[in-house]
């Protein structure tokens, strides 16, 4: 069976649902009694990507590299510092809250921290039903029924609609957030670690649900997660971020079979294997301090920890370039064509444990 996205691209390139170009978000750092700005956190520092209708773009990367910020900025929940965001070809970057309102229906988010994102004074049923009220979609009995149906879809019991967030477990709260995001049948959902609080069997249910809904409604997802097996499962393409930038972007098959960025390679090697008898793989230990987005290292941001770093990596910024069809990488190792597997220089920070 062909996915809708595949059908469309067979008929010629579809118009992307979302196009992001040169997106930046810098947070000022304020210190002292006068709150002087003493620097900036370059949380998202110039990223570009698109998502087609019915497509899932997975997003992975080191903790603190800017994934949540990217997701929230795309939805304009925080204002970008620079760059453009287009929804179905229409630029939404400069829209004021009033003009944004109708578009909000189409773009939803599932938050990373379910607890702090759910209003503790509202019942779970009202939390999930609130978007229906705000956007005048359904009221009264009809609303009740829709909320009950949403509860069932995400594996909660309709009688739990009357309970408050603190009465649920962590994974159950996450499902309330998912039900709320689904309430308005949006066309784009940014899922910020939407399944990491769930046990594997419910995680499987939710992932299957998300994939089903995608096929049914041609939904698009920006799917942020740490679990690479989950990302591999649900994504069509995957973006790997490091310190505010996308360092590799390709379809999932190439990413897992032929990672071309050293950070991606290290990331894949660190995935814990669910088999106690599995021989410990050669793990790539990233040595060196984790750099800070306040003072990112010059040249390639990754050079301070990269086992393959060369002299030029310390000064020259590698651009995100197309190394192979559909495979974008920012790394000097590939300047004269793709190199795979990555070369292993002497004294590389590898060790076996």
């Amino acid at each position, binding site marked *: 069976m062909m996915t809708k996205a595949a059908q469309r691209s067979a008929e010629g390139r579809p118009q992307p649902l979302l196009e992001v170009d040169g997106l930046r978000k810098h947070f000022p750092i304020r210190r002292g009694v006068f709150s002087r700005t003493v620097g900036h956190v370059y949380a998202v520092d110039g990223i570009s990507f698109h998502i087609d209708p019915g497509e899932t773009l997975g997003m992975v990367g080191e903790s603190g590299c800017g994934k949540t910020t990217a997701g929230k900025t795309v939805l304009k929940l925080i204002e970008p510092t620079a760059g453009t965001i287009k929804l179905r070809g229409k630029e939404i970057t400069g829209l004021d809250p009033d003009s944004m309102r109708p578009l909000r229906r189409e773009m939803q988010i599932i938050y990373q921290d379910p*607890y702090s994102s759910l209003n503790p004074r509202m019942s779970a049923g009202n939390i999930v039903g609130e978007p229906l009220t705000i956007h005048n979609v359904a009221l009264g009995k009809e609303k009740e029924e829709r909320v009950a149906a949403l509860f069932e879809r995400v594996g909660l019991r309709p009688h739990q609609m009357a309970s408050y967030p603190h009465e649920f477990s962590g994974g159950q709260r996450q499902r309330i957030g998912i039900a709320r995001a689904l309430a308005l049948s949006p066309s784009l959902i940014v899922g910020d670690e939407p399944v990491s609080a769930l*046990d594997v069997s419910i995680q499987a249910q939710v992932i299957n649900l998300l994939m089903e809904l995608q096929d049914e409604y041609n939904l698009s997802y920006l799917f942020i997660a740490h679990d690479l097996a989950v990302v591999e*499962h649900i994504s069509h393409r995957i973006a790997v971020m490091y310190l505010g930038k996308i360092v590799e972007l390709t379809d999932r098959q190439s990413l897992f079979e032929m990672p071309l960025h050293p950070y991606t390679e290290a990331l894949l090697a660190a995935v814990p294997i669910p088999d106690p008898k599995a021989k410990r793989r050669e793990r790539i230990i990233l040595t060196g301090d984790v750099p800070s987005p306040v003072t990112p290292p010059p040249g390639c941001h990754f050079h301070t920890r990269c086992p393959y770093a060369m002299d030029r990596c310390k000064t020259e910024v590698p651009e995100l370039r197309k190394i192979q069809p559909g495979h974008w990488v920012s790394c000097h190792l590939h300047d004269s064509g793709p190199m795979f597997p990555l070369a292993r220089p002497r004294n590389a920070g590898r060790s076996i444990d």
Partner: protein
Amino acid sequence: MSIEVKELKAAIDDTSLPVSGQAETVLEIDDLRTYFFTRDGVVRAVDGVSYSVRRSETVGVVGESGCGKSVTALSILRLVADPPGRIVGGAIRFEGANLLELTEHEMQSIRGNDISMIFQEPMTSLNPVLTVGHQISESIILHQGLSKRDAMDKAVEMLRLVHIPEAPSRAHEYPHQLSGGMRQRVMIAMALCCNPKILIADEPSTALDVTIQAQILDLMRELQDKLGTAIVLITHDMGVIAETASRVVVMYAGRKVEEASVDDLFAQPCHPYTKGLLGSIPRLGLAAKADGKRAPLSEIAGMVPSLFNLPMGCTFAPRCAYATDHCHEESPPLEEKRPRHWAACWHTDRLLGNTE
């Protein structure tokens, strides 16, 4: 010795305990029952759970979301909100005392000191109006009596140990200024700063990427090797369990349904729920091989029963492929099905027959 071990040695006070031959049990949870008395009825969140942890050992706890893992952990520290929650039965033994019988004052000196906890949701346990450095140093002052200044130095050192970049300046930031994974690491730093004898880690790495997760798990292991810390590791990540735990407890609907060494559990699950759980793990590299098509993951059909009115008999029966009438009528006892491998199921034999 790696740089990190040295750093750890410096950061953790030199209070190494003598290593005895046979590791003794340091924490024993015995038939614990914690219920919530709500307007709709009684939620039997933890309904007769027992497990124990030995010195230097890591016990993994897994189970369906909502099955009572966190409530068990909170009960150990007596942090379940009362009302509506109440520990209605059982005992929790630590160093010869039943924690359930201590006064609140006695409990306070144990919490965060002898037994510390990494909470599942960082934002619920971090104070939004205090800087993270302040919060860690407060706990150090409280339990170790260091001066304000020394405590702050140690707090910064702990933040560095959990790989927070630019720890000295990050210490002056508020929780909302940090990313999800950084908040989680702040929690971890706080839990480790007082050299606990028992560390209860409730989903300590869900917000961390795999490289930092590996470093944090190494850090916990080093603490364990050095101080003999016993760790209760609650996690959904079966990969983390496989790599970190020596024994595993599987919970379902408020009860323990299986317990075994990590090798035995993965090789030969004796409870159908465990088998389903192991079958639902997404495995790296499998999807990419499936010629570019995304296949659904295998899942355990159905829903956990409502804790208000648990079914008669085995609580897993409504979802179980092996269930017979007997299962629906009588609750299966926890039995030693194989050497040191316990499960509560009437049909383990059939299950094992089918797996072989």
